[in-house]
């Protein structure tokens, strides 16, 4: 009878093993099914001409469905070497315009020179650094490349790598 029992066990384990392997493959397929489609992943590059911008003005453009804030800093705004881009003698702050708390779009307040997120009261300074409220970190900097007076979003240029040194 012992032999019979071990045969039964083997059949059980073999069946269980096959079922588990099939289950894992099926789960992998389900995971992949919910991944962004190739057409979504290959969201294109965008070139922005910075030369017509006025000092103190914020321009919002859409890149990969996300708002990008470009602020041309006026003389009275504090500069931030770790985050600002200098090209053609002017300083710009470029950031993904989503509050790092829960992803709402903050509004530029020209009077106080800060970005304010109405949802949970988060505030960011002109360089996109969080100064008050729940946002845990400054607004993210999108990958960019500087091409003369033009800004190319989506490509990681040397200026970007300098600002974001440890980006994996």
């Amino acid at each position, binding site marked *: 009878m012992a032999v019979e029992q071990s045969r039964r066990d083997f059949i059980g384990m073999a069946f269980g093993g096959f079922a588990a392997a099939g289950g894992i493959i099926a789960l992998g397929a389900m*995971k992949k099914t*919910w*991944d*962004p*489609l190739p057409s*979504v992943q290959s*969201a294109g590059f965008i070139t922005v001409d910075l030369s017509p911008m006025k000092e103190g003005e914020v321009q*919002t453009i*859409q890149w*990969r*469905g*996300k*708002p990008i804030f470009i602020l041309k800093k006026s003389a009275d705004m504090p500069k931030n070497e770790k985050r600002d881009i200098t090209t053609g003698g002017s300083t710009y702050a470029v950031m993904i315009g989503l509050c*790092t*708390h*829960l*992803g*709402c*779009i903050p*509004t530029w307040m020209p009077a106080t020179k800060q970005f304010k*997120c*109405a*949802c*949970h*009261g988060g505030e960011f300074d002109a360089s996109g650094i969080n100064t008050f*409220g*729940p*946002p*845990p*970190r400054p607004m993210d900097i999108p990958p960019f490349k500087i091409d003369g007076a033009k800004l190319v979003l989506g490509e990681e240029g040397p200026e970007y790598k300098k600002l974001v040194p440890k980006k994996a």
Partner: protein
Amino acid sequence: MAEIRKATGFIDWLDQRLAVNKFIKVMMTEYWIPKNINFLWAMGVVLMVLFMVLIVSGIFLLMYYKPDIKLAFDSVNYTIMQEVEYGWLWRHMHGVAASAIFLVIYIHMFTGIYYGSYKKGREVIWLTGMALFGMFSAEAFSGYMLPWGQMSYWAAQVITNLFGGIPVIGDALVIWIRGDFLVADATLTRFFMLHVLLLPLVILLLIAVHFYSLRMPHVNNQDSEEFDFDVESKKYLDGKKVESKVVPFWPVFLSKDFFVVGVALTIFFYLVCFHFDFAMDPINFEPANNMKTPPHIYPEWYFLWSYEVLRGFFFDIAGVPAMKIGLAAFGFANVIFMLLPFLDRNPMHTAPAHKRPAFFIWFWLLLIDMIVLTVYGKLPPTGNNAWVGFGATIVFLALFILLPIITKMEANCKCNNGGCK
């Protein structure tokens, strides 16, 4: 196979094949309900009726709704509301029932807490009930985003972003859930699937388990009186109906339920016909715009308390970012009710709260605190509002930390038979 004889009638024909007589006895005519329970026990049946309303109205909406970001808004706000005959009725019934069902769920839940119906043999009822609450929350949220208005869109943005708070995999998980870098068509279609198929299936299954889990421990009663259901039901069947402490579910108990359901439906249709707008946010009549956030985002009223817990911490504590503390508190708030049977460490009593002095205070503090959280969840989180929200969040967390302590003290108290009476 059992011997099948010539049937004496249609019921007998069915009985030989499906045991319908036995089934009716077990489910209805010999399912015993205690006599001393009040109208609050009828909330389960009210919920069942509202759920049926949601399914029926949902089926009619489904026939015209288009799950596509270019078409969704107009299919609801033009086709269903303007073109389809009585389309407005189905939409308002669906919207109002979705809101009303949460009010009744909360009444049902707090009745369970007040009368101690979550413990001593009834843990599974409580657990499946809370699982149902979670599924209804997911169902409500996934339905809320379908009209693709501004508030729907940003609610989806905020809720899916919550998963970004999970360490390491957070950011990738958000993209995976959305199926895009932002809330987009892929997000809408998959939430549509969840709303109309997967979640309703899970809810139906959970309702069946929730009902089944009631059969062994039986329904609790107002005085938490322990009695032998076999003895009491025998008295009833022997004709001693006045002496017996139980009545059959059908037809006796349901007649009372029908009255409560009648009142509930009267109020419901009054709301549907005259005040349907309380379940409709004005901002949602503006089509979704991924480049413009509404000035003030808030969820539907039934999520406000947990939303306020999420944003209650608005400053960093000991170097931990406010957002992480908020997320942890939010997670705590969403699982802690589930653990209630195990946090209440007085094993003796399923007694109502008014017979447990410390628990009585705890219960009302919790209810008041949740109302405060709900009110302040709707207000902009600035100035004093932020501090009230913070205070109420602390009280909420503290109450659940204190519960095991006060119930243990209650159980140890020898003075009046374990803190009771």
